[in-house]
């Protein structure tokens, strides 16, 4: 820029006590291209803004150096001031003389000298700055929510209530997720279905929500504001418009009670055509083509009994898979979690005895819609257990399995103590083998105290082995509180397994271009400050796909993600920061080094035909690019430039910093 104004801030006495502000103003006035130099007590104040705007108007400055605090504080402020005053906001350069000078040093003389160098180097850069324009992209005001657990349900409802169209894609036949499998929920002991079902109904009936169950995202293209998503809709072989959910087909099916029921964790059997659970939304039958006789062999007795049973004539063997194409502006990912399969920890005997179960299986046993209609019975014999032992941290907080805490195990086990007593009576013996009790949530510690007051045996330690001989189960546990070794004889063991990323989360993350943290859960952009954002702009995460959490935190995060998404969808257009990386196609030879390392997947190779020959060069999507500079540093041929931080601009600064007398910088 040719007409530069320099504005030095006193920051009250924050800067001026350690930096001789006036001497800087006097010195920079003499530099090439500087046509204005002023100081003021608070440059960021309204009065300061007036000073800058007046210089733009009267002196016609086209570039500004503000010597003040960190650009993290006020760079946006001063860019805004410049823009208001009619100057290009991107020809503003900040020299940080507070954090880097006055606050950091105790010699006024040397601190002033350093501030002088910094301001002069900023002037050198300002001479070479270029005016930049923000790009604009129109926003499609639709949202996609992936996963219909409580997180996805909450996010969908919030967005739909804000007036946006929402596509909720759930891979299972019904929404509800894990919460639908639970009986009662800690710490309030609300019945899980009683609080979940109304929300599921609301989703189903909401005019703004397109519910796509039994569907999966196939591919995603585009960027924030304008994503194009392909969704595969698996055939249910049932015409959902006709099906009334009466269940007659389920009862009629020849495969009735012969296929392990996934919803009941394999503790009961279902038919080949089934309704996922009594409160399923949509309450529609679905035919499992892998177990349906007609699908497998083209023949089912003298004819499929489901067809015969269905008065609504809803069965349709000809249904085909469909691919829906959606266009959305923002995406919330809420794909939930899995539990560690305890079979991988042989010592706990999960695969050696039917009476060693998991907490989720126990939820199903306790549930009145579960395999035993809510009667807790030993899976091996159907008898009432007299003693139940719960082993916590199965795979959790264990360097060989999952180093992290599952955050819900302790509370789940404590909750189940109460539910077991309700179910089996006060006389049942309950042992809890724990590592630490982590009861950190609101009302959790109180909940724990209540359970502790009851007649429950707490052993602190991890059992070495669960020994199993037929119905006889024994556990050795060294209690580290009493320093004693105990042998527990028990009828039933309930394992509290670690919460792990979904088995397909790696594949899913790759498809969505999302990153994962070391534990395999989806990675947030910043654990504390951007917990719902991802590194892909416009894609947010909520619930257990980001890491283990209880329902309270899941719902809070889902609402947070929805409001982050709404922030985008409510805009007509998005403005893109122009301080991004740009490829010089004339210099790029298409080596593709930059492509794999872009954390935002913003770079793509494009093929062009030049003089009859195909040439490849990289192209950066200006909407996706966050200006991190990774590609700029990596480009071996120097074909990528970082706007606002071009080599010549930075070299000019280095030139001045190396030699203060040569304030002209490198040529």
């Amino acid at each position, binding site marked *: 820029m040719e007409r530069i104004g320099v504005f030095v801030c006193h920051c009250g006495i924050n800067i001026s006590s350690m930096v001789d502000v006036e001497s800087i103003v006097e010195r920079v006035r003499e530099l090439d291209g500087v046509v204005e130099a002023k100081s003021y007590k608070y440059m960021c104040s309204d009065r300061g803004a007036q000073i800058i705007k007046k210089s733009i108007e009267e002196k016609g400055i086209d570039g500004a150096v503000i010597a003040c605090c960190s650009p993290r504080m006020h760079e946006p402020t001063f860019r805004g001031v410049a823009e208001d005053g009619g100057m290009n906001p991107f020809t503003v350069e900040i020299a940080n003389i507070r954090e880097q000078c006055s606050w950091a040093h105790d010699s006024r003389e040397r601190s002033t000298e350093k501030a002088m160098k910094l301001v002069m180097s900023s002037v050198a850069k300002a001479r070479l700055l270029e005016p930049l324009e923000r790009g604009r992209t129109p926003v499609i005001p639709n949202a996609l929510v992936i996963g219909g657990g409580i997180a996805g349900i909450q996010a969908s409802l919030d967005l739909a209530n804000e007036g946006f169209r929402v596509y909720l894609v759930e891979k299972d036949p019904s929404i509800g997720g894990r919460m639908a499998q639970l009986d009662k929920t800690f710490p309030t002991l609300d019945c899980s279905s009683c609080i979940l079902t109304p929300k599921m109904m609301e989703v189903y009936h909401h005019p703004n929500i397109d519910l796509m169950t039994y569907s999966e995202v196939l591919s995603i293209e585009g960027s924030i504001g304008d994503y194009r998503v392909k969704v595969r809709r698996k055939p249910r072989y049932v015409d959902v418009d006709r099906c009334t959910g009466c269940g007659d087909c389920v009862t009629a099916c020849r495969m009735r009670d012969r296929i392990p029921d996934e919803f009941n964790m394999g503790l009961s059997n279902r038919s080949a055509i089934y309704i996922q659970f009594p409160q399923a939304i949509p309450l529609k039958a679905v035919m499992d083509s892998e177990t349906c006789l007609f699908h497998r062999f083209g023949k089912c007795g003298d004819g499929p009994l489901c067809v015969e049973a269905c008065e609504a004539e809803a069965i349709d063997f000809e249904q085909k898979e469909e691919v829906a194409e959606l266009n959305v502006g923002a995406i919330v990912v809420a794909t939930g979690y899995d539990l560690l399969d305890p079979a991988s920890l042989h010592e706990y005997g999960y695969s050696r005895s039917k009476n060693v179960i998991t907490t989720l299986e126990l939820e199903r046993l306790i549930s009145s819609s579960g395999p035993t209609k809510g009667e807790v019975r030993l899976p091996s014999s159907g008898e009432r257990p007299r003693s139940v032992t719960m082993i916590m941290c199965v795979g959790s907080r264990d360097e060989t399995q999952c180093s992290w805490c599952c955050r819900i195990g302790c509370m789940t086990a404590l909750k189940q103590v109460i539910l077991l007593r309700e179910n089996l009576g006060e006389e049942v013996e309950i042992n809890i083998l724990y590592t630490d009790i982590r009861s950190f949530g609101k009302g959790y510690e109180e909940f724990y105290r209540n359970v502790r007051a009851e007649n429950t045996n707490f052993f602190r330690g991890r059992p070495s082995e669960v020994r199993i001989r037929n119905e006889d189960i024994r556990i050795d546990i060294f209690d580290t509180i009493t320093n004693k070794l105990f042998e527990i004889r028990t009828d039933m063991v309930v394992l509290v397994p670690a919460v792990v990323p979904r088995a397909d989360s790696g594949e899913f993350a790759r498809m969505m271009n999302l990153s994962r*943290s*070391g534990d395999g859960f989806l990675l947030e952009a910043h654990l504390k400050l951007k917990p719902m954002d991802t590194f892909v702009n416009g894609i947010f995460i909520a619930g257990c796909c980001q890491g283990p959490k209880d329902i309270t935190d899941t719902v809070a995060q889902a609402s947070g993600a929805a409001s982050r998404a709404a922030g985008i969808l409510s805009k007509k257009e998005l403005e893109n920061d122009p301080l991004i990386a740009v490829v*010089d196609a*004339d*210099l*790029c*030879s*298409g*080596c*593709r*080094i930059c*492509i*794999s*390392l872009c954390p935002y997947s913003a770079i793509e190779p494009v093929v062009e035909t030049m003089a009859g020959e195909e*040439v*490849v060069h990289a192209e950066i999507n200006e909407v996706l690019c966050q200006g991190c500079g*990774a590609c700029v*540093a*990596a*480009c*071996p*041929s*120097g*074909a990528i*430039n970082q706007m606002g931080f071009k*080599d010549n601009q930075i070299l000019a600064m280095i030139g001045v910093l190396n030699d203060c007398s040569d304030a002209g910088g490198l040529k």
Partner: protein
Amino acid sequence: MPVTERKLKFAFYWGASCGGCEIAVLDIDEKILDVAAAADILFWPVAVDTKYSDVEAMEDGFIDVCFFNGAIRTSEQEELAHLLRRKSGCLVAFGSCAAMGGIPGLANLANRDKIFETAYLDNPSTSNPGRTLPSKESRVKEGTLTLPEFHDRVRALHQVTDVDYFLPGCPPPTNLILEAVNAVIKGELPPKGSVIAPEKSVCEECRFEKSEKMLTEIRRIYEVEKVEDRCLLEQGIICLGPATRGGCSARCLDAYMPCTGCGGPTPNSMDQGGKMISALASILGLEGEEALPDEEIERLLDGIVDPVGTFYKYGLAAALINRRLEG
């Protein structure tokens, strides 16, 4: 130099070089005849018997174009650089050594004393009981003998005198030599300071298929099984192609050998070796980078044998960091 009716006057000179550049000139085959028809060669120590004094006797600017190959290592080469600069209208740094120091530039990892020690004293095939080292002057009974001074450091031509054009390559490819000569003959020279070669890197000319690059280890060419058509860098072989100016038709790659960088940096790159190091650091161990233990990083880096020789094979003398100062 405008197009002239008269015959042009060329000169060729060699500084610290291997002689390959001279061969490259001859390599233009029968087209040398066209050159001879268009130009007289006034000075060419390898082929024409002209004395330095003959050059000194010429008027300043008398030579139209001087093609100077080789780096500047001795006082003689430095003097000739200045002399030929004065006598030539246009001075071309010909070949990687003149353009950026070349392989002789790697001597900047040591200094004169170290080099003399290795070459004249500690060399297993040298017997030098009197521990005689080259010196500028030696008295013998017939009088005083002089040798040019051996500088402490190797420099590229432009670090010694003003250069008009650069024609990198070890040696420069024939097509680029012809392009340069034709440009002179037709008087269609690019702006001063230009490198006479395409702007894009070697990858542009390389025929191998390129896809994304995430290296899990560094390997040397003999450690890989030949996979036709697959980018060598992707196979873990350090190939300087992406950091090197093309124009060579990727000849080395055609022979399934990685680019070693003789074309020098691309137009927007300040330091070829630095750029390549930065690129390699960006893609090496990229997958699961956050979780890489230090030992693994060490192991990956240990795969790079002779880093300076690899990344600065031709460019050390003219690099940002261009010599070892101690030890």
